[in-house]
Structure formats: C-alpha cells, structure tokens
C-alpha cells in the first residue's frame, strides 16, 4: 500500500495512467488505432513535439518563460534548409549551423535577461518578434525546397518495426535531459535557481551562468525540433514553429511542472506530449465534426490536468 501511494505521488504516474486509459479506450472503439502505420505517425508527432516541450520545460525549471521557442525553431529550420539550398552545404554541417544558431539565439535571450534584469516574459516577447522577423526577412514567406535526398530519407526511414528514425534524436535527448536534471551538477543548478534564486546564489551557484546555460539549452532543443520538422515535411517552411507556444506549455504543465520553477520532470513532460498527440489523433480517427475539434481538445486537456490534480491530492489525505 505504502509502496503504491509513493508511486502515485511521482509526477509521471498520473499522466501515465491517463495515457494508458486513453489508449485502451480508443483501441476498444477503433481497432486500427494500434496499427503499425498509425503508431509510426503517432511517434513522428511525438518526436517533434517532445523536443518543443523540453525546450520550454528547461525554462520553466528556472522559473521563467520562453515565448520565443517557436521563433527560434522556425529560424533554425529555415537556416538549415536555406544553407543547404543556397550555399549547398552538406547536411551535417547545416545541422551544426542550425543548432549553433538555436543555441546562440537562446543564449542571447539568457544574456539579455541576466544583464538587464528585465523579466524573461518581456525579453522573449521582444526576441520572438526579432527572430520571427529575421525568418520572414530572409524567406519572404517562401519555403526552401532544395532539401538533399539524405535529409529526406532520414525523415522518411524506419528504425525498426513501426519506429521511425526521427524518434532516435528525441530518445537520446530525453535520456540526456533526464540524466542532466537528475544526476549532473548543471541540472541541480537549474532546479536550485528555479526554486529559490537567492538561496542558490548564497550556496555558491553562479545564477547568471545557469540562466544563460538554460536558455542556450532551450534554444538548442527548439532548433533541433525545427530541423526534425524540416526532415519530416521535406521543405523549409517559414511558418514552422508558429503554433508551438500552446503545446510547449501544455505538455510540461500536464506533466505536473510548476510554473514558478524548481520542479519539472522529463518523463512526465514526455507523457504530457503523448497524451496531447493521442487526443489529436483520436479526434481524427473518430471523424469528429471538424468544427468541434477545438472544444474537445480543450476539454481533454482540462480532464488530463484534473486527473493529475486528483492524483496529487488523494495520497495527501491518506497520510493525515
């Protein structure tokens, strides 16, 4: 009993329960839900969305917000596609460049926030506009098409069974992030700064370095997500990233992250992404009136969060 209640208090428990329930429910209504191709499609969506969610999660961990996640992802995506088409750079070099741009853009956010002491919300609102503007200025809203075959086949190939190759980078990142937040000093610094900046500073942590590093990581992850989208869509669309913002917050919060900072969970965030992906797909599977999709999506997000909430309360009552 005690074991179970401790389990149920872990962040990932509620989302996991919701995920399993949702899968069972949908599968019982529509047998094709767990078909191989459908699982592949789900995994593709999850691969990108998880990186987007992580990108925000790292910033939530230090108690800030990064509104420019989508703008950084979009900028990296069109740089990745652009340098390959215009300069003919090989894909690995273009990838490095795109990731560097992402990390740099994130670091700029962090440095500006740190130097000026202005809230992250305001700084990233301004840089959102700047990064997106640079994107539009370069592309004039026209996509880049010159994606080399190597990238296209990377986006389309299968690792094994129904698992697409695109999942691999996300899986590695998930593992690294989990390791970082749990075991590495940098992860501890990030969480410490998030829960109490002054206490962290007093205990000898360099708050400035930590904030800038967290933002650079966030930018890097957003850029990687952008690159994966290019590989998946096989074109460098300037509008990549435009609709990331809501998802980037929804998934970590469904996964129990506290917006004030200091408390996030990589696994729970991943499960949050999975829930949203399953919901989106279920709506299509059940041929729900397209005009109603938004309502159902909103209601399901509330339900998922409510379940999480319930889970957090019950063991507390039991312990009294």
């Amino acid at each position, binding site marked *: 009993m005690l074991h179970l209640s401790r389990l149920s208090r872990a962040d990932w428990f509620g989302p996991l329960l919701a995920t399993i329930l949702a899968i069972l429910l949908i599968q019982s209504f529509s047998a094709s839900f767990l078909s191989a191709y*459908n699982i592949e499609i789900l995994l593709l969506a999850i691969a990108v969305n998880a990186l987007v969610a992580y990108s925000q999660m790292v910033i939530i961990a230090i108690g800030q917000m990064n509104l420019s996640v989508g703008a950084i992802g979009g900028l990296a995506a069109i740089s990745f596609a652009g340098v390959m088409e215009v300069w003919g750079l090989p894909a690995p070099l273009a990838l490095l460049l795109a990731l560097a741009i992402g990390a740099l853009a994130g670091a700029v956010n962090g440095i500006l926030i740190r130097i000026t002491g202005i809230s992250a919300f305001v700084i990233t609102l301004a840089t959102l506009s700047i990064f997106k503007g640079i994107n539009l200025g370069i592309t004039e809203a026209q996509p880049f098409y010159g994606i080399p075959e190597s990238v296209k086949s990377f986006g389309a190939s299968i690792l094994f069974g129904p698992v697409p190759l695109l999942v691999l980078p996300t899986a590695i990142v998930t593992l690294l992030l989990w390791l970082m937040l749990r075991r590495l000093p940098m992860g501890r610094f990030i969480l410490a700064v998030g829960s109490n900046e002054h206490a962290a500073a007093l205990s000898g942590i360099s708050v400035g370095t930590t904030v800038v590093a967290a933002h650079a990581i966030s930018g890097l992850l957003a850029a990687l997500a952008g690159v994966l989208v290019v590989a998946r869509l096989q074109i460098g669309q300037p509008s990549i990233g435009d609709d990331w913002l809501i998802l980037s917050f929804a998934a970590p919060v469904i996964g129990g992250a506290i917006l004030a900072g200091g408390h996030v969970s990589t696994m729970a965030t991943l499960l949050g992404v999975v829930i949203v992906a399953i919901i989106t797909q279920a709506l299509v599977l059940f041929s729900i009136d*397209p005009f109603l999709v938004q309502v159902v999506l909103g209601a399901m997000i509330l339900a998922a969060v409510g379940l999480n909430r319930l889970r957090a309360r019950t063991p507390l009552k039991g312990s009294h």
Partner: protein
Amino acid sequence: MRKTFNFIAMAGLCSLGAAAAQAADDSQLALVPGGPHPYFAAWEQAGADAVKDLGIAAADYKVPQKWELTQQNQLLESLLSQGYNGFMIFPGDPVGAVSTAEELAENGAQVIAGAGCFKDPSPAAFCLGTDTGNSAYLGTKELLKTLGDGEKRIAHFTGFLVDPNTQLRIDAVNKAAEEGGATVVQVIADIDAPEPAEEKINAYLAAHADEIDGIITTAWVPAVVAANALRKMGDTGIHMVGIDHDEVVLAAIKDGVIDGTMLQNPYGQGYIGAFALDKLRSGCTVKEDAPFASNALTNKFIDSGTAYVDASSVDGYIDAMRAETDKILKDFEATYLTCN
C-alpha cells in the same frame, strides 16, 4: 519559383507593349495580400512588370507582417497616409475589410479586390480572382474521372475554417461528388499550416487509407502534405487532385504519384489588377452593363482563370497560366471599362 514568373512576365511584356500609351502618371498603387503566403509572391513581380510596361509611378507589393485582419487594416491606413492612391486587396476578411476599403475610397483612392473578394456591398470596383467554388468543383470532377466505375469514396482536405472560402469549397466538392455518384467520406479542415496538416492527414491516411479511393485538396499546404504522404506510402491505388503550383505538387504529378492539380493565376491577378487600377485612376469607369460573373460574395466578379493540368500538360503549366492572362487582358478595357 521566381524564375517561372519571369517567363510569364516576359510574355506579359510582349503582349502589352501597346497598352503603355495612356497611363495616369501619378498612380501609386499597392498590391496588398492578406498576409505572407507563397501564393502571392507572384504579385511582386507582376507589380514591377506593370510599372515597367505601363508607366505607372509605383505598383508595390506590400505584405502585412502577419495573417491578421488588424495588421492588414493598419498597413492599408498607413499606405493611404503615405500617399498611395490605388489598392488591390486580398481582403483579410471578406466582410471585415469592407469598412477599411470604404475609408480608402472616401479618401479618393481606387480599390479592387484580388484573389479573394469583398462581400457586397463594397466600394471595390470589381473582384479579380479564382472562382474557388468552381475550381473545387472542377477539380473534384477531374478526380472522379480518374476513379472509373464502381464505388467512389473521396476524402477532402481543405484550409482554415475561419476563411469563408473553405465553406464554399466544401459545398462545391460535395455537389460534384453527388453529381458523380461519389460519397465524401471525410472532410479535414483547419490544416493550411504545415504541422497540423502533416499530423492530421497522416493520421487519417494511416487509419483509413483502404477506405478511400480518391483525395481532393483545396488549399496549398494540404496539397503539398498529401502529395508527400502518398509518395511515401507507395502504391495505394488512391487517386488525388491537388491545388496550386507548389514544386512538390508538380513533381508528384510528373512522377505519377498524384493525378493532377487545379492551377490558379496569381501573376495574372497582379498584372491585370495593376493595369485596371491605373485605368480607373486615369478617369475610366466600370461599365454599368459589364459582363461580371457572380459568386457567393459579390456580383462583380471577374474570373482570373483556373486550369487543370495533369502529367501530360504539367511541363507547359506556365503556358497555361500565360494563356489565361493574355486572354483576359486582350479585351479587358473594351469589356469592362468606359474610358474617355
């Protein structure tokens, strides 16, 4: 894509050298789309060519920085303050943009609608655009032709629900399907952005690929995504007709992945629009009895042309668009305008 438009531009230049004679030399025209979208990129070249050919002071392509009615209103107000006096507008909303158009007209500017229409009554002299309903209808007919006899189940992928054209397209596809004895088994909307399109279309095909025989797409991004999805899935026996001239769609036609696409004529809209605005500025008026067509929004509609291309005609698609433009331009003035 620029290159292809230059071809069309040259064609326009040749056929229109004669028209340069009487232009109002103070015409400062603005070609304003609803927001950044690859469809409108041809307007920039069209405007530049019109300036060169027709002796207009300016015909600038001005893009609202976002696809947002408020942004477009602000841009139009600003352009008016800067002295622009002729506007071709893709209304950010067919109803909501009317009041701004009225203000432009009250301040002495000429207004026409391009690519999409204002809802009547509006101060726009006319609307020059693709008959979206008709295009969707014709596209569906072409798709049904490829399906042959037997059961015909089609899926329809289309654009934003807030765009009233979407409802027109849904209705037109349903009508064509009904006439052809087909059933529309699924409409997926709200997907004229790459990511939701990718997710929803792939999810749908994953579950229902064996339950449909054909796909009709009536928006730019869904056409691209669906063409890619079919290419990836290999031999599914699903037929598809797309829309517009995105390179992905054209390549898919050439490789036999999809059957064809419904072309629209953005370059022609830009060029003819600039030509007509300049004429209106120099004192011409729209004829009372001009042979306008009508659609769900307006009774002053001029079809800028739509054409179906398949594997046999895809290489000459530029000619198809050029032919349409020349055809309309040739007797535009005589048909629609009274000039002194």
